[in-house]
């Protein structure tokens, strides 16, 4: 059996952008652009195999070796701290991890701050680094609702343009980590498929510039 290099890409717009970068780097796979229900796309000549997974799952596929390399947002890497190599900042999917709240929100430090977020670990780490006592309200979506309904005082979430916040009378209080897509690799795969992974990294690095 031929040994393929398995590449996990995040489903969605970011993933398509990233695939285009792979294509420009010479690692293409024509069948991926066909509209089909296939889950896995192979280019036998190059010995590579792409598959789309939920963006937040890419790190798991790579950490557990089902994918040798993959592309994941820095937010996911910070939240789950997977045991992987972070080889390259692809400089796409750029946004920030930020604290946001109602306009004119003032933090009353005599009270525990209620923080609603999808990123429980990131929020905990951030507030412990600035020595602020908090309560975490873990949500899976529509985080912006939380401060409006007084479920929380602030939210910790990804902010790209901030327009959703503005429309709901919320504003960014502080951006604390820049986020972008990263090329990650399984630590064991890197040892046995070094050459091809190095080549992909180098060629993608050229495109990123």
């Amino acid at each position, binding site marked *: 059996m031929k040994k393929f290099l398995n590449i996990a890409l995040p489903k969605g717009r970011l993933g398509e952008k990233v695939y285009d970068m792979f294509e420009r780097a010479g690692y293409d796979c024509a069948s991926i652009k066909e509209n089909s229900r296939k889950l896995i796309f192979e280019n036998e000549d190059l010995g590579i195999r792409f598959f789309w997974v939920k963006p937040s799952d890419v790190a798991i596929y790579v950490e557990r070796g089902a994918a040798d390399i993959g592309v994941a947002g820095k937010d996911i890497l910070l939240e789950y701290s997977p045991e992987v*190599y972070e080889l390259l900042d692809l400089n796409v999917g750029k946004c920030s991890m930020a604290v946001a709240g109602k306009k004119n929100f003032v933090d009353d430090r005599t009270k525990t701050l209620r923080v609603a977020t999808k990123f429980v670990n990131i929020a905990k780490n951030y507030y412990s680094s600035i020595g602020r006592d908090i309560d975490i309200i873990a949500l899976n979506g529509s985080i912006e609702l939380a401060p409006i309904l007084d479920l929380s005082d602030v939210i910790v979430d990804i902010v790209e343009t901030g327009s959703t916040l503005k429309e709901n009378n919320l504003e960014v209080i502080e951006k604390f980590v820049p986020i972008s897509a990263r090329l990650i690799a399984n*630590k064991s795969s890197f040892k046995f498929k070094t050459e091809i992974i190095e080549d992909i990294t180098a060629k993608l690095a050229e495109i990123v510039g």
Partner: protein
Amino acid sequence: MDNILNVLTAEEKISLSLRALYNENGYSQYRMSKFEEYDLYVKNKDFLVSSNVLTFTDTNGKLLALKPDVTLSIIKNSRDIDGVMKVYYNENVYRVSKGTKSFKEIMQAGLECIGAVDNTVINEVLTLACKSLDLISKNNILVISHLDIISGVLDYCGLNINDKKQVVKLLGEKNVFAIKQLCEDLQLSKENSILVQKLVTVYGTPEKVADAMRDFAVNVQTGKAIAELNEAITALNNAGFKDKIIIDFSVVNDMKYYNGISFKGFIEGVPTGILSGGQYDNLMAKMDKKYQAIGFAVYLDELSRIGG
């Protein structure tokens, strides 16, 4: 008699052959009780792979723990004797698994050399690590790093203890871009920044890195470390493992406990390292022991999946 061997699973066969290997090389088996005083682990919490420890109260009110680790017990029970105490173990340890977040019983094998650790001892341990990997699968690689080179280079560049910690973490991720950024933030000179980045970019077969390694010879500490590493490489070459070793400084261990040579073994098809070890003189000193120590552990639980 042959059919007795057929009953054994691949995992059991490997575990027996590892024991035979260590036995042949003059290591004696270390047996320990399932329990240990909890105190031992609290004092050295960061040394453990996972900080959770399964505890219970003994009839006399003492807090005991189901052992999450073997090395600490071996050190605790070692005496400051001249020469080198060589032991191996094959024990169950109790740790929280990352996936289920619940306690699991994990079979672990390994060996420790405690006493006057010199190059001969280091080389012997590395050779046994290679031989252990070979017993598991021929498609293996031993990745070797030297913490004194990392530490020495970072000291030379004037990093304080917190910055060092950060660089070491990024080094473990091979995150050269973040390291470059950090060096800029710390306003390191261009030469020093490049030197720090080289800790990530210089890796590969000993032949490939030989020239670049000389750049790390910036002070007495790294000079000594490079010589030690080179001697180990020569010893492994002579033992026939030339094609099985890679130098890579992304193998990092907590420098509070470890120093000197650190290494990790990988098997093709197993997503995580299967063997992990290094020299841990700092832990010995923390536990008020006079001598040095080096050893490694093989994580046998990962083997069930490779089969045969």
